[in-house]
């Protein structure tokens, strides 16, 4: 018996496979031959490790396991039935390579990588107890990922931008404004996220185990010191005056002022980094006095210093340049190892945010190689993942055992791991609605909303922010504010689509908590009653705060919750459409297996399921769907 054929997918795969026609002068990241050669080089380092250990190299996994693994790792969901059948039925020696190329170019990859970036950068939509949101920054990160902005450039933009948070060219300032008022925590996270250097302790005291002293931390903080909002004094004095006049904090006047403070000024960033900073008043060591001003100085790598005598204003640029270009192998190694974990399931060394120099890892040659590869590929994260997914190492068979090397991968086959919360969700919506990547992604929400209500329907944040930040004097501000307030009180309704176009506004598309769309399109983090929370999505308050731990709520949800409502008991679910045209029970069962588990059933399983259908008729199919989704095989990556 044959599977139904889905030629569309196959055609796409073939087309992608044929696409790259690359000349002699192609950059390495665009050259398929270079990517393949690099993959081979990685495999040789891994093989050398096996030889040294006198171990047999693990075998390569079967097509079905590879298919599911490749999808989950690169686009964060299981294949739709069409995609699965397309791949499994292809009879082509290079089909794995073609699949990888197809996946990495698909919009699903950007979605999956956005979840990664949101976890790493602690990207939440809102900030508690303020009217501020991180909307333009979220959108900026999403676009940077979508456009595959090279990592060094992305980091540089986040660390050294200044100006209007709503201007797309400077929206990277969200990296700092997300942590408004807490620049030192932000700095400690910067060192951890980009350099794998843990300095949180030194924020308050000398690290008793490490080399970092509190003095070092402040010297580093000098680079980013002096962050402020653009022309903040205008709004501050305005609000101070207002507080004297206004009794009630919920008047339109007060709300509008607070809104401008949080959403416009609060999203902006002035001050390029002073280069000097006073030591804190509780500074406790003998080498300096509290309040003494120290100049910027880097703690390792090529030394960069700035004078304590004057404010420079270029400190953040110097800092970003040091992180990216003057820390030797550290910057490329940290991101290369993060990407290795993203693709292979475990870092070459772990934890990935505690950098180890190559000689201290179990695989010095390999880690040195991938660090250089990252540079050679111009920090192109997609190309780098492409190399890893072309390796034989990526295709190793599954090994359920824990790594025999503490805090590192032992490369004894793929480690079994529960899917992330986002991977489970994205897979379920694929079953419920088919390939979700054709849906348009959410756009920047630049509407003006105060207290949950849209106000000023004829304006958008981008223009408003630009105008407000351009105001130079208190008088100008007052005039502008009064005009805005009058307009707000007047109300009015949102313009129609056509008149919106003529005003240069774009249609805003967002998805609320109930939408059956990719996790990357939902509110960040998803609300606490959401499936994503239950399965351990990070609350994005701390770096990579996600959990894959099981709990009883997850199992209840699989048995009685979202899965039942949207999938099993929903006759409109995409999964039941895959049964159209199947003429007999074995064929239907086979299709359900391929759709949910990306593989055909074994003979034994076929007998179980046929018995179920025989006993229960139509509801037998629902029972099969339910059982397959509840199975550990569905929840785990092999």
């Amino acid at each position, binding site marked *: 018996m044959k599977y139904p054929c889905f030629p569309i997918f196959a055609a796409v795969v073939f087309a992608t496979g044929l696409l790259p026609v690359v000349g002699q002068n192609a950059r390495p990241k665009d050259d398929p031959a270079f990517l393949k050669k690099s993959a081979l080089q990685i495999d040789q380092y891994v093989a050398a490790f096996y030889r040294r250990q006198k171990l047999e190299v693990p075998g390569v996994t079967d097509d079905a396991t590879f298919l599911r693994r490749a999808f989950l790792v690169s686009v964060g969901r299981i294949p739709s039935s069409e995609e699965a059948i397309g791949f499994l039925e292809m009879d082509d020696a290079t089909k794995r390579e073609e699949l990888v190329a197809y996946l990495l170019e698909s919009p699903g990859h950007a979605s999956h990588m956005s979840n990664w970036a949101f976890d790493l950068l602690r990207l939440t939509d809102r900030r508690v*107890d303020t009217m501020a949101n991180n909307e333009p920054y979220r959108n900026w990160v999403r676009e940077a990922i979508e456009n595959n902005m090279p990592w060094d450039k992305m980091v540089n933009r986040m660390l050294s931008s200044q100006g209007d948070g709503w201007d797309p060219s400077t929206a990277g300032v969200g990296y700092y404004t997300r942590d408004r008022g807490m620049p030192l925590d932000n700095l400690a996270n910067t060192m951890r996220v980009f350099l794998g250097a843990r300095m949180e302790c030194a924020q*308050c005291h000398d690290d008793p185990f490490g080399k970092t002293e509190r003095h070092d931390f402040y010297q580093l903080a000098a680079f980013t010191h002096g962050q402020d909002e653009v022309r903040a004094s205008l709004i501050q004095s305005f609000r101070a005056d207002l507080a004297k006049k206004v009794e009630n904090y919920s008047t339109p006047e007060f709300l509008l002022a607070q809104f401008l403070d949080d959403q416009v000024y609060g999203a902006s960033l002035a001050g390029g980094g002073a280069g000097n900073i006073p030591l804190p008043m509780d500074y406790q060591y003998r080498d300096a006095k509290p309040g003494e001003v120290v100049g910027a100085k880097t703690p390792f790598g090529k030394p960069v210093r700035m004078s304590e005598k004057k404010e420079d204003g270029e400190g953040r640029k110097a800092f970003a340049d040091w992180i990216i270009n003057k820390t030797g192998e550290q910057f490329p190694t940290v991101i290369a190892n993060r990407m290795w974990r993203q693709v292979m399931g475990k870092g070459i060394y772990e934890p990935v945010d505690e950098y180890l120099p190559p000689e201290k890892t179990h695989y010095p040659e390999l880690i040195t190689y991938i660090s250089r590869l990252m540079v050679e590929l111009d920090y192109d994260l997609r190309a780098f993942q492409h190399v890893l997914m072309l390796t034989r190492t990526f295709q190793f068979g599954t090994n359920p055992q824990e790594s025999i090397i503490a805090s590192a991968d032992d490369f004894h086959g793929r480690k079994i791991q529960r899917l992330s919360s986002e991977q489970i969700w994205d897979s379920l919506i694929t079953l419920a609605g088919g390939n979700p990547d054709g849906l348009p992604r959410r756009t920047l929400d630049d509407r003006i909303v105060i207290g949950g209500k849209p106000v000023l329907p004829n304006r958008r944040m981008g223009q408003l922010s630009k105008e407000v930040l351009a105001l130079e004097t208190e008088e100008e501000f007052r005039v502008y504010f009064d005009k805005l307030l009058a307009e707000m009180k007047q109300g009015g309704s949102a313009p129609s689509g056509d008149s919106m176009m003529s005003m240069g506004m774009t249609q805003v598309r967002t998805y609320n908590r109930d939408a059956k769309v990719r996790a990357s399109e939902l509110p960040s983090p998803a609300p606490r009653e959401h499936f994503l929370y*239950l399965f351990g999505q990070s609350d994005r308050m701390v770096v990579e705060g996600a959990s894959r731990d099981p709990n009883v709520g997850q199992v209840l949800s699989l048995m*009685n919750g979202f899965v039942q409502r949207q999938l099993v008991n929903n006759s409109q679910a995409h999964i039941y459409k895959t049964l159209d045209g199947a003429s007999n029970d074995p064929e239907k069962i086979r299709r359900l297996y391929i759709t949910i588990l990306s593989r055909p059933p074994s003979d034994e399983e076929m007998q179980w399921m046929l018995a179920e259908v025989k*006993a229960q008729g139509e509801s037998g199919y629902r029972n099969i769907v339910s059982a397959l989704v509840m199975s550990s095989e569905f929840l*785990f990556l092999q």
Partner: protein
Amino acid sequence: MKSFLKADEFTRRQFMSNAARAYLGVNLFPMFGSTLASAAPEAAVKGGKAKHVIYLYMAGGMSHVDTFDPKEKKDIMGKTEVIKTNADGVTIGHYLPKTAEVMDKVCVVNSLKSTQGAHEQGSYVMHTSYNMLGTIRHPSLGSWVARLGGRLHPELPPYVAINASPENTGSGFFGSKFAAAPVGNPEQGLQDSKRSEAVSEDDFARRLSLADKMNRKFHDRYANADVKAYEELYREAINLMKSKDLAAFDLSRESQATRDLYGKGAFAQGCLLARRLVQHDVRFVEVQLGGWDTHYDNFAGVEGRCKEFDQAYAALLTDLEKTGKLQDTLVVVATEFGRTPEIQIAHAGGRDHHPSAFTCLLAGGGVKGGMKYGSTDASGSKVKDLPVSVQDFNATIAYALGLPHDLVLMSPSKRPFKFSGPDAAKAAPITSVFA
């Protein structure tokens, strides 16, 4: 019943087998002589009136000077005013008028000190007694209580976390059996705990049986602890679904008057749910209230947080007392650190992290009310007397429950761990706050 022996069979066997190994090297078992041999643990562990814990966690670092450790100096207090309470000599910040009416039930521990000044590490040590490590995940307090104390209700989960960050309520190396059952939104209770009406009992059973067949095959192929955990959870979940006490999670069973007593919002209703759960013999309930990270405009921030906290906390203590549960329920208010007495003018009156002195609260479960334990200096900057480490504080929670805070349990990787943290912390419970 010897309380530490309530740790399950596996633990005891492991305990015995490890004992011999321990004697070859370091003595890992300070409890060994007094408990395992013959003495009743009650002799070693006094306190012991509490059966439950309601752990209210103020995520982000609650400002101690603006709430429960107010000072005289205006330059420290900023916009915060000091008010009297119904307990002599106990004053608090003016954002907490209702709490002021119940301070006779509360012991204010003003002298906490943490070595961790960042949120992630600070919350981690508060919840586990250990510093964060890259190589192991430690069980959280609720998991320790579930494991050492055992469950009181045969079907309901022993540990429930309401509106909490998942990384704070994990069971670490204890495994999923001791992990918190998460409740995201208290209004919805434990989601999906009832069989859908569209599914017949027969079909439901068939689904489980098919899934079970699938899973057994899978587990045979991949004998992995995480995979196994899900198998066990299915059994647990089914028992739970069948429980007649599932209504413990249902806030709609409470009168409107009671619901209004606690106030609106996820934290307030979470406190009410916690009260229902301990009434139904859940051991440990954590409820989180986030947003205390008031670097920027601290006074507006604290005021906003206190609005969520004040009425709910006062209602919880009053309600527990009225229903007779206060005497065997320890109500803890904890946070990862305090905030600097200095006010950052540049950040619109913000306060930064301050781990070197902060305040947590204890009430119920045999704790004396209307008192303060320990103090800070005139500025609220340093601990003046009776310093309490995070581990001492957690040891006190174990003590209140009559659980051995220093019993050693081994991780699967054969490393020793205790409720109250590493040996180096030398944790000791504060016994004098118990009546």
